[in-house]
């Protein structure tokens, strides 16, 4: 009896120790990884596209106050090769930006996003974060250089609906012979929880010789994202707010 009672009493303590050890170990590994990155990377530089890795790291850390992003399906994305990731987007959700930051953190490689303005200071700041102009040639150049690029579909206020995917940008990916991945994003204006689920690469339906190929691929990507949003289900805050129709699936 006493031994049994001892086990009952000891269990939470042991569990607590394990938890503490785990937390310390994770924190230590995080610090050591961060130290390695700091020492490995040269200070005061930007890359070929003007992305500042130090600023990105700082903004990624700050973004954790707003978003706690869970990235799934990132195993589909290659560590070195170029790819275009298309995400669903809603107004003011900044889905392409938080997706790029989160995927970059998950893969430990630079990820760029499409849609920076070309006016200072917002455009300059976006460029430092890895922003590209919303121009097919710009995207094609980055993809050809082996970069991972995130672009957002048009904003759509409806839940589980995805806006139109710019076929010209998808065409840039086809021209650069890189795969196009659909990715469903979900975030909530009321909580930090956000999720990105990257699907397997979308294949063109049939072989076309003309620009119809990119139109069809853009539509297929859109369909794939919608399907993934259906599979993700609703996001819950665990509060009565869930009873209101503001669950904001799709990144509001």
């Amino acid at each position: 009896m006493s031994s049994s009672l001892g086990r009952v009493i000891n269990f939470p303590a042991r569990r607590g120790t394990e938890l503490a050890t785990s937390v310390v170990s994770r924190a230590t590994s995080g610090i050591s990884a961060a130290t390695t990155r700091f020492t490995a990377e040269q200070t005061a530089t930007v890359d070929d596209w003007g992305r500042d890795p130090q600023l990105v790291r700082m903004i990624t850390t700050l973004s954790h106050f707003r978003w706690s992003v869970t990235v799934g399906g990132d195993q589909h994305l290659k560590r070195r090769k170029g790819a275009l990731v298309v995400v669903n987007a809603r107004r003011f959700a900044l889905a392409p930006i938080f997706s790029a930051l989160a995927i970059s953190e998950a893969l430990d490689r630079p990820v760029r996003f499409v849609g920076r303005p070309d006016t200072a200071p917002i455009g300059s700041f976006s460029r430092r974060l890895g922003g590209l102009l919303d121009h097919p040639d710009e995207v094609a150049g980055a993809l050809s250089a082996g970069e991972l690029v995130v672009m957002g579909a048009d904003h759509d206020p409806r839940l589980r609906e995805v806006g139109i995917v710019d076929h010209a940008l998808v065409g840039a990916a086809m021209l650069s012979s890189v795969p196009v991945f659909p990715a469903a994003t979900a975030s909530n204006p009321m909580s930090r929880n956000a999720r990105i689920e990257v699907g397997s690469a979308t294949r063109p339906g049939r072989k076309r010789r003309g620009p119809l190929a990119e139109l069809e691929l853009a539509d297929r990507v859109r369909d794939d994202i919608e399907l993934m949003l259906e599979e993700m289900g609703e996001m819950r805050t665990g509060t009565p707010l869930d009873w209101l129709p503001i669950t904001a699936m799709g990144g509001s």
Partner: protein
Amino acid sequence: MGGRRVFVSGVGGELGTLIASLLEDESWVGELSGIDADPPRRRLHRTAFHRMHPDEHDRIVETVTKFNPHVLVHVGVWEPDARAAPHVAATLTDQAATSIIGAAAECPALENVIVRSGIEIYGRARGALTRPSESAPIQPTSQWGHTVAGIEHTAALVGERVGVTVGAVRLAPVLGPHVPSPLGRLLRMPAVPFSVLADPPFAVIQDRDAALAIVAAARVGLSEPVNVVAPGAITVLQAARRGRRIPIPLIGRDWRIARAMSHMLGAPIPDHLSEVFHRGRLADNSRMQELLGIVPETKTTDVVDRLYDWPTVIRQPARIQVA
């Protein structure tokens, strides 16, 4: 292939001299000749140098046609505020392009023309591509951009008319120990102004890499444009910090004062340099390997580091004191 005659215009400049000295070591080059308004910066062993001003059309035509080159390497260009004021530089460049390329067109042996151009040709208008490739539209937004666009246009017209291939080597801003460059001059000032709202990235090219690229273009008979840009990029603030210069943040009308002061202190800021400070200047160099078979040896950050490593004045005392 061996024994080809190569004519280099602008052989007196630092880049031209470097190109000529590299061409002298090339096995495919037979005779080598060059002209410029100033003599070469160092001793050239095989190159026959002719000193003449760009406006001496008759002498230029006579010299070039007499030499009858197979390959013309035209690097006789004047960057604004590098060695001449902007309007003088534009005039000299235009005169040289017209008379030298025009003279080469009269040569029956001519097969290939290589012209020195610049990535300023793409312009930095609002919405312009961040890293334009060679296929990007030519929309210059500075005087120097218009000048290099003019050179390429003249060369292309001549090439089309006489049936020779024309290659354009679009160089990033060239930096080197002796290269007169308004960018290099400004970055080496004790205090360097930068745009606090933009501070955009730019790329450069080491003078030796630029010369190697032009020589490679002549060797392979380049027949299209190619961007020659060192890998990597840097912003003005980052460059100033690397060089331990005092960065001066500027916004709006402060620039007008800064330009005037910088001009008085001997480092003028022409419009194409001002564009670098406000809009940045990058270009896609991914086709260099394919078209020229070489890649730059020095990264942009290293070029800038070397810029700050140059000693300001080297004083060498006389071996024998005579007085």
